[in-house]
């Protein structure tokens, strides 16, 4: 008996038991449940168990679905490109241009603190900035750049993407910074001694060595944007749609089976993207 207790498999599972329990009850079971319910049928007042493909037939038969999925991918790609550009530049500055560890930590913390505050409030905060009479419009008007207020600043694709970048760039900065900090500085010196220019060092040394961090940041940003429904609803003023909103609209109408079918398709799309990216990076090694 004691021999079994000392086996690494048993102690491993005992220590991981609470984690397993939480993930089983609040992740695996709910996902299975969604899978099952996606074959059920909805009446006006309740949902009834069934084995029907109706929800999927409706989903794939509707042109709206394809538009919405395309829109979701479009948001994800644009936000990914922007967060990568900003996140890489910020991380590069912190890792290679800030000279003391204390300052690096302090400045990285400045970037991180908003992540620990409320996303909903951070979205609301854009209203006085982007609104019809907001700061952006009044500044541009007084500078004479425009004659009348721009209407597309708030409640548009522009504001949705702005908010996504605002909320999610931190998910690029931290993983990229983490890998950059571990780059052996003598490699850069060696490249410089061998006559490489700054741009060549960046392109041929730093970027290849930063790839794992970029991949992890990419996974975060893509999955967060693809799975979002709050940002799109709030920042587009309910004028744009993504898959998350499709699901939450169905939930609002108590159409759980059709919401579940959409959720299953969304989950497959997200897991495919993540699966693809995980083939390019070993996360556990990079932490």
């Amino acid at each position, binding site marked *: 008996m004691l021999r079994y207790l000392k086996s*690494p498999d048993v102690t*491993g599972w*005992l*220590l*991981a038991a*609470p*984690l*397993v329990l*939480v*993930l089983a009850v*609040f*992740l695996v*079971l709910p*996902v299975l*449940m*969604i899978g099952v*319910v996606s074959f059920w049928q909805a009446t006006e007042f309740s949902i009834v168990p069934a084995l029907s493909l109706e929800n999927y037939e409706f989903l794939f038969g509707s042109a709206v679905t394809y538009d919405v999925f395309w829109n979701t991918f479009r948001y994800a790609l644009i936000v990914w490109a922007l967060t990568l550009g900003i996140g890489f*530049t*910020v991380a590069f*500055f*912190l890792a290679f*241009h800030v000279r003391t560890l204390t300052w690096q930590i302090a400045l990285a*913390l*400045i*970037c991180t*603190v*908003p992540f*620990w*505050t*409320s*996303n*909903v*409030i*951070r979205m*609301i*905060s854009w*209203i*006085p*900035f982007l609104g019809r009479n*907001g700061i952006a419009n009044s500044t541009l008007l007084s500078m004479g750049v425009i004659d009348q207020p721009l209407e597309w600043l708030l409640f548009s694709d522009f504001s949705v993407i702005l908010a996504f970048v*605002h909320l999610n760039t931190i998910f690029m900065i931290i993983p990229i910074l983490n890998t950059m900090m571990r780059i052996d500085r003598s490699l850069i010196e060696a490249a410089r001694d061998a006559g490489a220019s*700054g741009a060549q060092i960046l392109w041929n040394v730093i970027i290849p060595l930063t790839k794992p961090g970029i991949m992890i940041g990419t996974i*975060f940003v893509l*999955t967060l944007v693809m*799975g*979002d*429904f*709050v940002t799109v609803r*709030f920042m587009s003023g309910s004028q744009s749609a993504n898959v*998350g909103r499709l*699901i939450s609209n169905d939930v609002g109408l108590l159409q*759980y089976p059709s*919401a579940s079918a959409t959720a299953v398709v*969304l*989950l497959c799309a*997200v*897991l495919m993207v*993540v699966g693809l990216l*995980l083939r390019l990076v070993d996360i556990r090694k990079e*932490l």
Partner: protein
Amino acid sequence: MEPRPRSFYILAAFFGLYVLFLYGPTITIGILSFQGPGGGLTFPMRGTSLNWFRELFETQAVGDIWGSFRRSFALGLMVMATTVIVSVMGGLAFRKRFIGSGVLFYLAITALVIPSILVSLGVGLVFTQAGLPIHWATSGFGAQLTWTLPFGLLVMFAVFNRFNPAYEEAARDQGASAWQVVRHVVLPIIAPSLMGVALFGFTLSYDEFARTLLTSGSYNTLPLEIYGMTTNVTTPVIFALGTLTTAFSFVVIGAFLLSVWVMNRRRARHGSDAGKGV
């Protein structure tokens, strides 16, 4: 020290702009929440007053803000404590490979990448179909853990990847039991990182919206209450609430960071406690 290259100043300016982009909107609503009684949601300021903060304290005006704050605070503490304990145990478990550890790791990653609405919808469905009441302290609590636990676990991975096993070996050589090694060697060394896990646990729970949306039942948490207000409140009172809860978050974050700093300082001052016994 060699002079800074020109690229430093360009990148520093870029960084400055990014920080402005990050904090600008929050500072804006901070200022606007002191709008005079006749002021609106944007500039110009029509005088300054504490009018909108005062309105927050008149309960009937804008729903059950204080009740939702109490719930969010309690839930944050519950999630924080659970996240710390479960993450430390999970982190310890993953230090050695065991059968199924790979699957479990990818399950935790799945929890991190799965769209939050799926967790919300799925947990809600499981509870209703099982006939259990949906409540923020049960279904909401569990749904939030699927988001905070993977973060806690990732922090623990980072910690244990850098952990020097020589300390434990030394303790074991002195005859310490497995539990004593964890209690008197491992935990004190990782204590500052545990504050980090706790910070993630509390703040991510306190601000969580999507995962709580369909799992909190009839009593709203604070983010849900605030989101509800966006559809029917058109006065700066919402900015006042935003300012107040952001200030609260800053206090919490500051307290955590300060405690980590104090811990590290104390450790640096006392140095090794070798020979002092346990």
